[in-house]
């Protein structure tokens, strides 16, 4: 592992709007440079994507960006990032995705020239490789289309490059449903890490070639799947909290490979990355209720540099189109945080403290995301002699934090959850730190579910 000490070692230093290494976009938005900037995410309403609907789709995306910028300007927002997370057909046929980037970028550019309003597009091609089961992560026929979209899409105006990568997910979904922490660690810290190394070395190369920003990844398909399952009370929240901690070890690899941030909004592991590497992060909280519920609506803002809404359908609400509504909500959140920053660090730290305290006692997933606990857990991660060791250490520490908070009355935990603390701790006791031993041990139980050679094993 590249990082052996924290870039930010105090909870107070892990502050919203401020990263140790800010990132400046081509139109001059400084992410993590002293203010919080909204990041708007959106998707199509229920409709098919085919040759007959392409014009209408283009109009949807143009309308979203046009209306959002107009309203952002009206609200005196300092700028906005638009995340364009492509849908299946837009990646499979890269020309569709590229054209949509161009349509949106033209609106951004027009507003920059006419009004000096700064906006950028984060281009996030969806990871097509999971269409094959088990996926062919390194030899997939889908990779060519993904690389083409990264390359030509960035030239068409996608200034920040991201992906929600899925390496290891083919075994992780089952691990979630069975609360199998050992397999979860294998999926994230062996398969996930190896896949991230492969993917991000390529994405960083494309970004360098095109003078674009290799932003970052998200373990959404792992950590947020766990969070949503816990929200539905399908799995224990304690388990989801521990999975979240482990996802940080996996997503960190993008930065080790040269990504500079901001990581993707739905990566709630972002605060750990910010503490370890000093890169800016995007986060989503209460504003993402339009896409999914979560127990971390306020605490998620503690360290955010971009503040996002996850995704919203382009449908009409009473006040306007839903993305424009989200634009306003995000800007008001960002405005409050930026006002606190203007009052100086004590005021900003007080707001940070309130954001954390309002969530931390109600759910272990919120508890582990408070700046104080993020620092404690990140310290464990960087002590790890490798990715597996880092994951196990951080998971153990996470369980200690949850147990201590529960026993001291600082965390509400339903009785049905409590037995899982010991069960999960037990499951960490026999995980080999050595990767080849771990692989040898896991292979027989996972035969046919993943292809070792697709992970360089």
């Amino acid at each position, binding site marked *: 592992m590249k990082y052996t000490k924290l870039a930010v070692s105090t909870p107070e230093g892990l502050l919203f709007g401020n990263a140790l290494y800010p990132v400046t976009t081509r139109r001059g938005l400084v992410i993590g440079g002293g203010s919080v900037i909204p990041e708007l995410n959106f*998707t*199509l*309403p*229920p*409709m*098919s*994507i085919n040759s007959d609907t392409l014009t209408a789709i283009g109009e949807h995306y143009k309308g979203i960006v046009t209306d959002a910028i107009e309203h952002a300007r009206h609200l005196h927002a300092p700028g906005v990032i638009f995340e364009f997370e492509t*849908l*299946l*057909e837009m990646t499979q046929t890269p020309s569709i995705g590229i054209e949509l980037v161009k349509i949106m970028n033209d609106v951004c550019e027009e507003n920059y020239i006419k009004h000096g309003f700064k906006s950028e597009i984060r281009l996030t091609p969806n990871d097509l490789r*999971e*269409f094959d*089961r088990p996926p062919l992560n390194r030899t997939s026929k889908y990779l060519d289309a993904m690389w083409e979209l990264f390359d030509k899409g960035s030239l068409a105006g996608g200034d920040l490059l991201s992906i929600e990568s899925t390496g290891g997910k083919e075994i992780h*979904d089952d691990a*979630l*449903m*069975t*609360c199998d922490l050992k397999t979860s660690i294998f999926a994230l810290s062996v398969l996930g890490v190896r896949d991230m190394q492969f993917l991000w070395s390529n994405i960083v190369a494309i970004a360098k070639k095109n003078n674009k920003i290799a932003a970052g990844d998200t373990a959404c398909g792992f950590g947020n*799947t766990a969070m949503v*399952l816990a929200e*539905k*009370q*399908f*799995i*224990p929240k304690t388990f989801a909290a521990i999975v979240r901690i482990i996802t940080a070890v996996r997503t960190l690899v993008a930065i080790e490979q040269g990504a500079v941030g901001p990581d993707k909004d739905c990566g709630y592991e972002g605060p750990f990355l910010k503490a370890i590497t000093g890169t800016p992060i995007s986060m989503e909280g209460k504003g993402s209720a339009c896409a999914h519920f979560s127990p971390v609506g306020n605490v998620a803002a503690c360290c955010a540099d971009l503040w996002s809404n996850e995704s919203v*359908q382009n449908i009409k609400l009473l006040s306007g189109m839903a993305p424009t509504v989200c634009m306003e909500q995000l800007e008001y959140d960002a405005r409050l945080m930026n006002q606190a920053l203007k009052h100086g660090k004590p005021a900003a730290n007080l707001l940070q403290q309130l954001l954390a305290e309002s969530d931390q006692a109600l759910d272990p997933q919120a508890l582990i995301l408070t700046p104080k606990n993020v620092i404690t857990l990140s310290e464990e991660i960087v002590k790890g002699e490798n990715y597996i060791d880092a994951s196990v250490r951080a998971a153990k520490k996470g369980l200690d934090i949850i147990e201590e908070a529960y026993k001291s009355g600082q965390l509400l935990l*339903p009785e*049905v959850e409590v037995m899982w603390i010991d069960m999960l701790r037990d499951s960490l006791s026999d995980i080999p730190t050595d990767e080849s031993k771990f692989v040898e041990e896991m292979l027989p139980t996972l035969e046919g579910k993943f292809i070792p050679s697709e992970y360089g094993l």
Partner: protein
Amino acid sequence: MNTELLEKLSECVEFGKINLASPYPPQMKGQPGADEITKEALESGVTPTEILNDALIFAMNKVGQKFSENKIFVPQMLLSAKAMGASMVHLKPFFANGSVKRKGTFILGTVFGDLHDIGKNLLGMMVEGAGWEVIDLGIDVKPEKFIEAVQQHPDAVVGISALLTTTMVNIKPVIEAIRAVSPATKIIVGGAPLSEEFAISIGADGYGKNPQEGVIWLDKHVN
């Protein structure tokens, strides 16, 4: 009927005791599980129908109830399903010769263009636990694959799921394709972006807000 054995078997399924070797649940460690007790029950003359209805489905109903009341999580329910599966292995010959019958057949799949399957898998497990035979067609399932399965199992009920706003619209052509070859086939749909109104508008017979509702709908409307 050997009530004691049926009660023991029911307890094994309820608490997820698969066989003698399985360490879970800790309070039943070292005791025979669903595997051994089913064998013993059959040898002692308990009928396969009694085993299925009075032990397995009875226990899984209790498990489903506990899950609905948030007293257990999915992993515990999965262990119960595994224990039921261990018992069902011994009942297989009786299903094959027709001396014992399931409630029906349920064909299940995620619509084409969509890769999400956690909710679908959960529904499949719960439906199976409720006494149905489940045929899981997987993810990204094209209309032809659904039709093929319906033609092989003409009395089956079909379940179709989607998780995206751009794939939920794919369910309608699948329903139309199924109805073109089998107009009487009952179809239930589900998935995060769907609603009852949407289900009705595309011609589905039922909508499950969650897996539990799916099972209730099947039992209520089909049997």
